[in-house]
C-alpha cells in the first residue's frame, strides 16, 4: 500500500527548472532512498512532500493528506528531519523533547525515544554542548516524537564521522523495524546501498531510475571487471576476441578487462593457453557507483 504518492512534480526558481516531472510512490514499511548529486532536486522534492514548498504543478499525497492543504494534520503523520535545523543554544535535550512532545495529539514516549537514540545520558545537556552526532540523533528524535507513520530524513549523515554514520544506519533500521516508513535523501552510495529497499535516482530534476539497489546494479550491463598484471607481454587481441569480453585496456602495468557472462573463466583459460600468469588478479564487483555513472553520465561527487 502506497503511503506517499508523488505525481509529476514541477518546480521552477526563476529560469532554473529544479524539478522536471518527478514521480514515485513509497510503500508502507520500506526505507526509500532519494539519491542524486548536489543540486539535483532531492531536497526540493522532500520539501514539497513536507509541505514546506509549493510545487508549480503536480500532486503529492502523504497518508491520504495533501501537504499544501492539510497543514495541521500532516505533521501528526509525517515527521521531518531537516538539513541544518538547529535548536536554541541553551535548550537542554530533555526540555526540547518535552516541548516538542507537547505539540502532538498522540506523542511517543519521549524518554523511551531518547533511550533508543542513546541520548539518555544527555538529558540535561544544552544543545550547544552536544557533538555533531548527538545533534543529529536529537534531530531524529524530534522527527519521531510525534509518533509519525512516515519519517523524512534529509542528508542525515552528512558531516558525521564514519563510526557515527554506521551507528546512525543501525538506528534507521531499528526505526523501520518499529513500523515507521522512511524516506531518506542521501548522496552517499554506501548509505543508499546498505539501507534502502528501493532507490529513486534523481538527476537534473528528473527520476532517471527507480529500483532496488541490486536491480539498479544489474541493469547496468558489462559491469564485471577484472584487473591483473600479466607476467609476460600479451596481445590484447587475444582477449578482445573472446565473446565474453567487451573492452581491454592497459592501466599502468595492469590490464583491465570488462565483460559479461563467465568472464573470469574465459580470460584465465586464454592466459593459461598463452603461458601467461595473472599477477595481483582482482575481480571487481559492480557497485551502485558504477550504476550511477551509467545512469547519469558522471560520478555523484563531480
Amino acid at each position, binding site marked *: 500500500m502506497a503511503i506517499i504518492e508523488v505525481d509529476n512534480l514541477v518546480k521552477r526558481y526563476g529560469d532554473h527548472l529544479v524539478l522536471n516531472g518527478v514521480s514515485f510512490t513509497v510503500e508502507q514499511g520500506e526505507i526509500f532512498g532519494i539519491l542524486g548529486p548536489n543540486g539535483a532536486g532531492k531536497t526540493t522534492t522532500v520539501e514539497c512532500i513536507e509541505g514546506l514548498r509549493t510545487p508549480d504543478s503536480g500532486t503529492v499525497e502523504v497518508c491520504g493528506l495533501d501537504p499544501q492543504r492539510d497543514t495541521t494534520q500532516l505533521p501528526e503523520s509525517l515527521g521531518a528531519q531537516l538539513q541544518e*535545523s538547529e535548536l536554541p543554544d541553551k535548550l537542554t535535550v530533555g526540555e526540547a523533547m518535552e516541548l516538542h512532545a507537547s505539540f502532538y495529539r498522540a506523542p511517543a514516549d519521549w524518554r523511551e525515544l531518547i533511550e533508543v537514540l542513546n541520548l539518555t545520558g544527555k538529558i540535561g545537556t544544552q544543545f550547544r554542548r552536544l557533538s555533531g552526532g548527538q545533534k543529529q540523533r536529537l534531530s531524529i528524535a524530534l522527527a519521531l516524537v510525534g509518533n509519525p507513520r512516515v519519517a523524512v530524513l534529509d542528508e542525515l549523515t552528512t558531516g558525521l564521522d564514519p563510526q557515527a554514520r554506521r551507528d546512525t544506519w543501525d538506528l534507521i533500521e531499528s526505526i523501520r523495524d518499529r513500523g515507521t516508513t522512511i524516506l531518506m535523501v542521501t548522496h552517499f552510495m554506501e548509505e543508499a546501498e546498505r539501507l534502502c529497499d528501493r532507490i529513486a535516482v534523481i538527476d537534473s530534476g528528473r527520476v532517471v531510475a527507480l529500483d532496488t539497489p541490486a536491480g539498479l546494479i544489474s541493469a547496468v550491463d558489462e559491469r564485471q571487471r577484472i584487473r591483473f598484471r600479466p607476467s609476460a607481454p600479451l596481445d590484447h587481441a587475444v582477449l578482445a576476441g573472446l565473446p565474453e569480453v567487451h573492452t581491454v585496456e592497459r592501466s599502468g602495468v595492469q590490464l583491465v578487462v570488462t565483460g559479461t557472462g563467465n568472464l573470469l573463466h574465459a580470460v584465465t583459460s586464454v592466459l593459461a593457453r598463452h603461458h601467461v600468469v595473472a599477477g595481483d588478479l582482482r575481480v571487481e564487483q559492480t557497485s551502485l557507483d558504477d550504476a550511477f555513472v551509467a545512469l547519469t553520465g558522471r560520478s555523484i561527487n563531480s
Partner: protein
Amino acid sequence: MSALYRLTVSETRLFFREPMSVFFVLAIPPALLVILGLVPSFGDPIEGLGGLRIIDLYTPIVVAMGITLFALTSLPQQFATYREKGILRRMRTTPVRPAAMLGAQLLLASILSVVTTVVVLAIARLGFDVGLPQQPLSYLAAYLLSALAMFAIGLLVASLSPTGKTAGAVGTVLLFPSLFFAGLWIPRDSMNDVLRTISDFTPLGASVQSLQDAAAGDWPQLLHVAVMLGWVIIAGGLAARYFRWE
C-alpha cells in the same frame, strides 16, 4: 493556547539563561532611575514646569526605555536568530505554527516590560517621592501604544535583517537615537524647538510625552497618539510585508 503557553514558559527560561541580556534589559532601567534619583539637584522643583522635578521627568523616560530595550535589542535579535538557525522552519513541520513562537516572544517581552515598569514606578514612588500616574487608564493606553509601536519597529528590524547578528546590531544602532529623542540625555522640556518637534514625531518622543501627560492626570495629546499609531501601522505593515519564516 497550550502550545503558546508552553513556548512562553520555555522562552522565558531561555531568556534567564543569558545573564548579559537579563542585566542589559531588566536591570538597567531601575538602576538608571536609582542613579538619577540620587543626584541631589534632580529632586528640586524647576521653575516653569509647574513644580515638577528632573526625577519626575525622567520616570516616564526610564519606563519607555524599559519597553525599548526589549523591543529593539532582545526581540529582533532573538527572532532573526531563530529564523537563521532554522528553528522556525522546524516548527513548520510540527502541528504548532511558527506564529506561536512569535506570539511567545511578544508575550515574554510584554510581560517582562510590564514587570520592569512596575519596579521602576515603585522605586520612583517609594524612593524618590514621584507621584503614581494620576490617570491610570490614560497611562495604560499610552503604555500600550508605546509598546505596540516599539514592538512593530523591532519586528521590522527582525524582518529585514538576514542574521541574528545583523538584527542585534541594527537594533542597537536604532536604540541610541530613539533614547536621545525620548529625552534620556536632554529631557524634552529642556530641548530647543527643533529638537522637540523632531522628538514629537519619533515613537519614543511621543511615548514619553504621553506617559508624562498621563502621569500628570491628562490624556495624551492627539498629535502623540497619531504619531504612535502611525508607527504601529507603518512599521507593522512593513514588517508584515517583509516577514519571512525562513
